[in-house]
């Protein structure tokens, strides 16, 4: 069947999604919350990639950031605290045809769900994971999180956090099978979008840590970095992030970094000031657990039955005289 050019254009227009096609309920985050910027970048990604909303699933745990799926007009799963990753793994194993995204907070991922996080990196299942790292527990009203900087005053550390912060980048890069690790900040939307997009296009466990402002509880925590572009180290590369001329003018503190270089990535990841932003590591060669596990065989009733009968045969005692 052939169609005329105007008809084709019309169809393209009709079929090409708008941002509204991905916008769920109105976000209920505080004004100025960095989660809004992450939501905007992700909705843009969905639109640009024309993802079918019914084929897209956003999975989360519990926390302010884990409200994310409610604000998407896709399938969503807002589960329990810390367990977003294993739920997402189950979804992925059952349904390789779905696009799977995960939103998790620094408490959700790096504290209560830390065990799952380590193993999720190792499983390397194809999903895009956003760590909304605001360095504090938002939903439960300002307690220290594993990524809270030492000295941070919170309701559980009124005299300042006792311990050095955990570094989610070095941890992830230290796990066998890490295949995509990037860092973005909520206040540079263009870079955030580029990284979210690169993460989506990577096949495997794409881990994006996003430094996210929590104006409610830590109103000026990120101010020094916000006000001084020099305090952000932008990692650029032909195979990594590329800056628009406009941004390049603002962000002069840049470093060429090849995302294939794991040792360099680890070295960069361990620096907190300036904040490295960009793709630290990418290795498309790591196998995905679901591909290792799924046979791809079509499970018809007859097929399953044949397998069951073969097993039953092994345990069957035929009446005497039976051939």
């Amino acid at each position: 069947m052939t169609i005329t050019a105007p008809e084709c254009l019309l169809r393209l227009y009709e079929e090409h999604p708008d941002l509204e096609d991905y916008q769920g309920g109105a976000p209920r985050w505080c004004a100025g919350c960095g989660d809004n910027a992450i939501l905007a970048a992700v909705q843009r990604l969905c639109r640009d990639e024309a993802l079918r909303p019914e084929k897209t699933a956003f999975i989360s745990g519990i926390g302010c950031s884990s409200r994310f799926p409610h604000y998407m007009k896709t399938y969503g799963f807002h589960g329990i605290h810390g367990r977003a990753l294993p739920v997402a793994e189950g979804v992925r194993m059952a349904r390789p045809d779905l696009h799977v995204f995960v939103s998790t907070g620094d408490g959700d991922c790096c504290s209560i769900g830390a065990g799952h996080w380590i193993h999720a990196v190792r499983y390397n299942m194809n999903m895009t994971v956003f760590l909304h790292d605001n360095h504090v527990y938002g939903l439960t009203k300002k307690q220290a999180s594993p990524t809270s900087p030492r000295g941070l005053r919170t309701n559980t550390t009124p005299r300042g956090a006792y311990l050095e912060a955990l570094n989610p980048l070095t941890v992830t890069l230290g796990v066998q099978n890490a295949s995509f690790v990037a860092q973005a900040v909520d206040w540079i939307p263009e870079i955030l979008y580029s990284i979210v997009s690169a993460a989506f296009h990577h096949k495997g466990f794409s881990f994006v840590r996003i430094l996210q402002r929590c104006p409610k509880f830590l109103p000026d925590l990120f101010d020094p970095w916000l006000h001084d572009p020099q305090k952000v180290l932008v990692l650029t590369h032909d195979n990594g992030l590329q800056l628009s001329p406009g941004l390049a003018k603002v962000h002069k503190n840049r470093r060429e970094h090849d995302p294939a270089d794991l040792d360099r990535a680890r070295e960069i990841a361990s620096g907190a000031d300036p904040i490295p932003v960009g793709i630290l590591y990418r290795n498309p060669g790591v196998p995905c657990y679901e591909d290792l596990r799924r046979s791809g065989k079509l499970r018809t009733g007859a097929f399953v039955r044949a397998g069951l009968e073969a097993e039953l045969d092994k345990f069957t005692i035929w009446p005497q005289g039976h051939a």
Partner: protein
Amino acid sequence: MSETLAAQPVENAGRQAPSPASGKAITTLSEHIVEVISDSGEGAQVCGQSLGAIAARMGNGVWTLEIIPAEIEPPARSTEGASGSRIRLGSGRMTNCGDQADLVVAFNEQVLLARLRAGEFKPGCIVLLESLWRTHPDKEIAASYLQTHARLAAAGFRVYEVPMERECRSLVADARRGANMFALGMLCGLYSLDLRLAREQVARAFGSKDAGVVAANVALLEAGHGWAEAQLDFKFRIPALRSLEPQIVVNGNTALALGVLASGMEICAMYPITPATSASHYLSNVFEKVGGVVHQAEDEIAACSFAIGASYAGKCAVTITSGPGFSLKQEAIGLAVMGEIPLVVVNVQRGGPSTGQPTKAEQGDLLAAMFGSHGDAPKVVMAASGIEDCFYSIITARKIAETFNMVVVVLSDANLATSQQPFPRPKFSEAWMAPPADQSAVPEGARPYDWNALTGLARRFVPGQPEGMHTLTGLAHDRRSRVAYDPEINEEGIHSRSLKLAALQKTLKTPPVFGDPEGELLVAGWGSTQGAIEEAVGRLRAEGCKVSSVHLRFLQPLPPGIKELMQRFKAVITIEGNWCDRREDEIIDEGNRRYSALAMLLRSRYLVDVDCWSEVRGQPIKPGTICRVIREALERNREAARR
């Protein structure tokens, strides 16, 4: 030890292997209980299971029970290392491991003592004891052997010394390893089992090894058979009621795994834990062949969450665990209840609380299964009542889970997990299979929680269905799955989820009563005790006692008609493998007595005065024990009536 020994009446003195017996008389029996016990790793379990399989092929009723040491590598020749199996052989169907053993083959005297102290042998029990130790160079070992031998004989056991290892030496290099097949041959001879079937069974057991291994084991089998024929002065025969149907012989855990295959589920997520693990071992080996996946998660929380994720995405999944793992899954189970995600959770119960007794049987998790998650979290709780039921329970559970969008907990226990019993080979039904995930477009206006006012049921929307997009949440939510803190909406959700149990209850049948529908005493049970309870009730009924029993497969919801059923008896007692306070304790009275789980449920639901008796000894409850309990209960009730 001496008390135990002294308690055994002297019937027969022990003896050395007698002179060759020719044309010996064959004693016909209706049943016999055999134990084969060794240090762990000496193959007594293979011997016992093979014996069971051969007898089953001859058409005998069989129940085999594994005797499992708690440690992986217990010291050799130690009482705590006793490992092996009990095989109950009979003319009719065997539904439990019975009371005490009639005949035992022991590879050393220490493992024998372990079972003796546990009271597992009948007075006058025949003991076939490896004689190697008599002349052991270690003086202490030899002395221990001689002492035990003498005491056993004095206590009335019929002890026969068998030079198993010596006899095997001429046949295999490692005679220690061959003794189990020699013992099998001996037992086949003693029970007049068909040697041809025995050879086939050995070939099966070692089928994966090369022909040389099979031949060597067949030679051992024949040697054992020949030795028993020539050296022992007795022989038995247990007539078989031939079955015309093909049967399968598996333990409860394998039956569970086969049930998973047959149910059409394709994802099982688990974390290793005794005694559940062997189900996943078996499944790991076979599931992939039919396109399934066993995912060993990083912990039980992850396993349960993984299964929930798969179920949410349209493939109803199962997670298999035991006590401690079940506790860890509870929060995730609550999520599945709240989100109305179908999920099958199998708990192969072990002794608790905490790490408890990992390899031992207990029925301590019923209330945790019903009420384990916080808040009002109605879920279905079933208990497999036997090995065959392990298979069918999973199929039923998957079906209920998907029909009602509920969590279905299937309880098994360590007794069923490792016991074997033949049952009719299941005949595959297309209806067992899970339907493929619905991917059709959702009709306009339909909402993901359109709860039916009568049944609480709502049609579930699965990812991939156009126009069904919504975010499932563990927070209170309205019909559109929007988070809501409205008092009405919260109540509507809780109300609807609760109604589903009632809707399921309406589809259940009142379980049959074993025995007369009325009488003096009704015994109620659940789970693995069915065989033992019914055997005990049968024995007492034969004596004229007016006792019957009922066994519950559904614990939540309880099926209809239970109250009426109970009211036709003067008294009701539950028999369970969990704790209930003892009346004899001075401090215990009606005001503080903690009842067993099922008794508590029946009392609270039906306002019927249900008594209970329980035991938490880690062993399957024996029919003889139940007989005693029933007699005592009858006596107590009569006494109360007289007063």
